[in-house]
């Protein structure tokens, strides 16, 4: 029985992610944060997230990570399924 030969295609370009910095600010360190932030970035303009939203963001990213890993495993599964194994394997 002849099998249909499906070529395994190349993987996409790897992710190149930039580091991101989070500041945890409360009423006690707000002044210090303003000083440090302005010294580092020049202007006092920032995006604020509540702890709840930060948690949600972390959980969302964790779910995306889960999906990405599972998708990758499924692709590997199909690649292995369509790849012919060598008839005789060398003994380890």
């Amino acid at each position, binding site marked *: *029985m002849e*099998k249909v030969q499906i070529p395994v295609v190349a*993987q*996409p370009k*790897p*992710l*190149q*992610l*930039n*580091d*991101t*910095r*989070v*500041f*945890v*600010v*409360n009423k*006690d*360190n707000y002044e210090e944060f303003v000083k440090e932030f302005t010294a580092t970035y020049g202007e006092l303009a920032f995006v604020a997230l509540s*702890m709840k939203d*930060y*948690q949600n963001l*972390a*959980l969302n*990213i*964790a*779910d995306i*990570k*889960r999906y*990405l*890993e*599972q998708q*990758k*495993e*499924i692709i*590997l*599964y199909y690649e*292995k*399924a369509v790849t012919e*194994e060598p008839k005789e394997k060398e003994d380890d």
Partner: protein
Amino acid sequence: MIKLYGIIILVAVLGGVGYGAKYYYDTTQNTIAQLRENNAQLEVAVDTAQNSVETLQGDMKKLATLNKGLQEDLQKAEAYGDELRQKLSKLDLVVEALKNSKSLEGKMNGATANLWRDFMGDTGGNAERPLPNWLLESKARTDSQDSNQSGESSDTSGSTTEATPTE
């Protein structure tokens, strides 16, 4: 004269029998040849069918093994999210932020940096990229602060290289 007729009839009968025997022999030989040819074709067909069955059985075995591995890998991929949810449910980030904002900040930044590196590693990129200076400085500051604050405690959960944003 009767004798002559008898001989002619006998010869005719013998000829008929001989012809019949020859006809039977030829027909049988042809049938045998046809059957031999059919048998050879059937043997080829049986071999092909046998090979197909073996190929299918091999494929089924291979797919069953692959499927088992896939289910395990899919389950493993759930681990990070489950662990994170578990940790977040145990922690109150607002309380942590009010208690020690720098420590929490270090943990969040460290975990985020590790997460980005995990993503890069998972997609074939460089998972070993050095941490940024601001993170290393922040980690050093937090570590020294932690050791000064709690000499009795050897808790190392303040490490900025933990794998979740909160731990």
